[in-house]
């Protein structure tokens, strides 16, 4: 009789032991798959949500007086737009910043109303880090105006509005934000450069950090070193509250994953090992008679390790399917912003289909060795 046939018959006979082994391991695989998919979804959601909270890095000319900068909300010094291009060419997955937008900001007076005029460049994103720009896209010849601007200038979406000698179309429905955005006019960078007579100039580069730095790493120092190495002409200002919120969210998730996954794996290993020990105890007489019939240690170890591998394989299939189903079913309501990005992780499932049988065999190794080293004479004498 083949070892496989022997194992299958024993599994069929000791249904409870098989069922509990399958249950424990399937549950562990389900948790691993679900927690991995949730972690991925959580990271996506965090990135998206914090990205939508706005840029948290501001790169301004090095000679900017920060007192003036914080008072006015922009630097009075300009820098060449080529600096944005220089920084953009360094965007890779190995740097700690992303989503670069060059801007030119100045106060401006329209019909006696002092407003903030902001020109925005296109967004530069690291390869493979998504293409959707942050904020809104401004078409050439259009502007987005704040609620106070709309109120004073009496403008609505679709209406024409002059800034200097240039005419623009209002592209947005205005919403009161309670921020300086209410007195801001956003336009394309080249349009604002043209209005201000500052062709080829910007006075700020906005960016977002990578969400990969923890507080103990002193993220600002790392960012300043990285960016300073590329653009020594700028100083880096970080909006700490946004950065801290992102870091805290990430650290919380990492802590949870750091505790949950090892605990599940340990509990599962103990569970499998205990069931294997009980299985060995139940089968002491069988081991004895197999020895008496001349079966070697390899065959006996094979019966126990083979069973573990088989249970692990089936559990991996069940657990991968269950974990994927749970996340696909409940993930969209947990992560509404990035729900479309929630998909099955087939490479992970494939890895688990290989790893789970090995894990089960490893957990059953000591009980299997107990079976092999068991003195058959001891049980055969127990008549």
């Amino acid at each position, binding site marked *: *009789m*083949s070892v496989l046939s*022997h194992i299958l*018959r*024993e599994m*069929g*006979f*000791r249904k409870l032991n098989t069922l509990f082994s399958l249950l424990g391991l399937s549950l562990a695989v389900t948790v691993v798959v679900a927690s991995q998919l949730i972690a991925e979804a959580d990271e996506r959601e965090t990135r998206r949500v914090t990205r939508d909270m706005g840029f948290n890095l501001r790169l301004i000319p090095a000679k900017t007086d920060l007192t003036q900068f914080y008072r006015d909300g922009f630097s009075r010094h300009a820098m060449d737009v080529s600096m944005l291009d220089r920084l953009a060419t360094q965007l890779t997955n190995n740097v700690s910043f992303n989503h670069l937008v060059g801007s030119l900001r100045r106060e401006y007076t329209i019909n006696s109303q002092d407003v903030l005029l902001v020109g925005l460049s296109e967004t530069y994103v690291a390869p493979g880090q998504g293409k959707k720009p942050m904020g809104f896209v401004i078409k050439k010849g259009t502007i987005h105006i704040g609620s106070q601007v709309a109120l004073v200038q009496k403008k609505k979406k679709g209406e024409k509005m002059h800034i200097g000698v240039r005419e623009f179309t209002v592209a947005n429905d205005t919403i009161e934000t309670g921020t300086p955005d209410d007195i801001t006019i956003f336009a394309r960078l080249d349009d604002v450069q043209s209005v201000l007579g500052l062709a080829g100039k910007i006075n700020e580069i906005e960016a977002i950090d990578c969400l990969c730095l923890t507080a103990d790493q002193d993220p600002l120092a790392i960012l300043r070193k990285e960016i300073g190495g590329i653009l020594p002409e700028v100083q880096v200002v970080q909006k700490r509250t946004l950065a801290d919120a992102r870091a805290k969210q990430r650290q919380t998730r990492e802590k949870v994953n750091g505790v949950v996954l090892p605990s599940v794996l340990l509990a599962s290993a103990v569970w499998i090992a205990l069931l294997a020990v009980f299985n060995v105890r139940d089968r002491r*007489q*069988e081991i*004895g*008679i*197999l*020895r*008496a*019939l*001349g*079966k*070697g*240690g390899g065959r006996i170890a094979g019966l126990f390790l083979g069973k573990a591998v088989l249970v692990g394989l089936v559990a991996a299939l069940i657990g991968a399917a269950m974990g994927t189903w749970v996340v696909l079913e409940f993930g969209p309501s947990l992560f509404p912003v990035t729900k479309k990005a929630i998909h099955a992780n087939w490479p992970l499932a494939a890895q688990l289909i290989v790893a789970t049988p090995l894990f089960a065999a490893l957990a059953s190794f000591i009980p299997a060795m107990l079976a092999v080293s068991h003195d*058959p*004479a001891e049980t*055969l*004498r*127990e*008549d």
Partner: protein
Amino acid sequence: MIRCVEVTKIFRKNGSEVTSLDRFTAEIAEGEFVAVRGPSGSGKTTLLLTLGGMQRPSAGTVQLGGRDLYALSPSERAKLRSSEIGFVFQMFHLVPYLDLLGNVLLAYPGKPSEAVRQRAAGLLDELGLAKRGSHRPGELSAGERQRLAVARALLNRPKVILADEPTGNLDPENAAEVIRHLAEFHRGGGTVVLVTHGTAAETHADRILRLEQGRLLAD
């Protein structure tokens, strides 16, 4: 066939020693039917397991067919057990999840050929179990279980059968039936070492060894 010289087996537990076999010396010729008798705890089962290469003695040598059993490697000993020795135990020691045919075939080393399967089926037939080939041991009576154990012991055409109280759990009728099958094996030239309390086997035995406190009292 079997030669024991000064075989001693001492069990040590919790600091105390129990001598189960004490300088046991005997020879069993090929084709001989030997009954081993003695009170409980006299070392009968220890002797049987030692003869079968299942339990290394503390001292002395056991030879089977001229080979020192315990000088062989565990795998050589296992191979020898598989090809030359058949075991029958009082508690049958059948594998509960295999059917009758599966239990008999379990004795075969490797994948059984069609001829081996036919031999297993033939043995079940000879032992009156043919109709129950697809049943499991749990569905059999005690007598049937023991006959199944005998069939398993006979599958590989062993040279010797070591039977440890095979009738201990059987009614007289079934006990006689089992002894009859062992006697048949003996008549075919096989060697039988039968540990027993009963007297039924004595009519078939060529020789009776009496053990007491691990010592051979009479031969």
